[in-house]
């Protein structure tokens, strides 16, 4: 597999170094996904692509799989209690919720711009921050307190948070080769198959790897891909001549 994605050099607030080291640290739980600015990684990767003459589909596919996995990890860490809630939403409701959040963040970003401008405008306003040098000292007196308040406060700190299971998040990537063989086997039996139907029963992460395998086959010229509409089913058809070549090379 191409190493273009994994070799990507990153310079983030929380991490500096190659992408594969970042992945290693995250998987070893030495780096919190929540601390990582994912958008900065995507920007770095796109810049990296732009510097090259041709698009490396392998690298793109690998990158998509890895960044999606990271995003899911991060999302679960940031919103542990929301997984179930969001899963129950209809697509329209989910879109509505997402739009609401994006709009909210955009408003906060603009509010931050406003605050920055305000700060610049107030630059020459100086005021005293502490008490005046010759001010009398204020004495704060506290009414008698119930010791039970302390016990309640401590009991609150000893209350465990609701448990969130992350067991299904163990990142196990099946090798791309496994899907290459599987698709080739299908194509030996049938000239055309439906990608979505073929991978429907697989977990998300395996579907992503399967998609990567599909791109690999397409790159080799072993298959032709067709999709009637965005998000529509992907039809995979074998390309006779290329398949024969591949067959010959492989059997030699």
């Amino acid at each position, binding site marked *: 597999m191409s190493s273009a994605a994994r070799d990507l050099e990153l310079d983030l607030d929380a991490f500096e170094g190659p992408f594969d080291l970042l992945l290693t640290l995250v998987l070893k739980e030495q780096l*919190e996904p*929540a*601390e990582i*600015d*994912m958008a900065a990684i995507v920007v770095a990767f796109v810049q990296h692509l732009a510097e090259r003459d041709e698009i490396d589909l392998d690298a793109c596919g690998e990158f998509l799989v890895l960044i999606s996995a990271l995003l899911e990890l991060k999302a679960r860490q*940031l*919103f542990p209690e929301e997984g179930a809630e969001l899963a129950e939403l209809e*697509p*329209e409701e*989910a*879109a*509505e919720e*997402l*739009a*609401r*959040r*994006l*709009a*909210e*963040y*955009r*408003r*906060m*970003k*603009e*509010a*931050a711009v*406003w*605050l*920055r401008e*305000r*700060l610049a*405008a*107030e*630059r*020459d*306003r*100086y*005021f*005293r*921050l*502490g*008490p*005046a040098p*010759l*001010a*009398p000292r204020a004495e704060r007196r506290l009414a008698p307190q119930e010791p039970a308040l302390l016990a309640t406060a401590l*009991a*609150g700190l000893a*209350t*465990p*948070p609701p448990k969130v299971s992350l067991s299904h998040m163990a990142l196990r990537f099946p090798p791309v080769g496994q899907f290459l063989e599987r698709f080739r086997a299908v194509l030996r039996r049938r000239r055309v198959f439906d990608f979505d139907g073929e991978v429907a029963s697989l977990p998300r992460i395996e579907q992503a790897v399967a998609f990567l395998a599909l791109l690999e086959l397409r790159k080799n010229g072993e298959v032709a891909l067709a999709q009637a*509409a*965005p*998000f529509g089913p992907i039809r995979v058809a074998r390309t006779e001549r290329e398949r024969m070549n591949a067959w010959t090379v492989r059997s030699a």
Partner: protein
Amino acid sequence: MDRPLRLISAETIAGTPIDAVARTIEALLVVASQPLSVEELATAVDDETERIETALGLVRERHAEGRSGIVLERVAGGYAFRAAREAAEACARLFERPVERGLSQAALETLAIVAYLGPVSRPEIARIRGVAADSTVAALVERGLVAEAGRENAPGGAVRYRVTPLFERVFGLDTLAELPRLDDLGGEPDAIRERLLAVAEARAS
């Protein structure tokens, strides 16, 4: 209630000339470590808020830009003295502004969220910004711009935060109501919503 109050205030006027009240207000403002509201001033001076307002007018006149190095300012729901703008350069030579120096983009966004939505917890801030907020919030607490304000729901809940009076002073706000209305920020949420709905529909079909 109008009548008796007026009577008392007539007597007080006879007792303390308004100019003396103005001087007392000057004294209070020069030793106070926070902006003082009209009510706080009235309690300390032991006079009526109306007379305090009148005396504040005198103080404002005496301590205006160009006339005095000390300027009366309405900020954070009260009144405070600050340095005149003409002295900003001299102030900059002597005083650091550690509170506001190097407020990062992350810090400003977090401040905006706490100012508009506070009291608000770190998980909520993280949900909006998409990045964990722990270190940013800790730094803002350290600078005194943000402070704890109880916990969500109670036992085991996350700590919530609000902005402090210092925040209002640093940004020269009389109240948080002076922040721009949220509805006026952020442009076209409808456009984002439509785009997402289109995606959702294509997927559902």
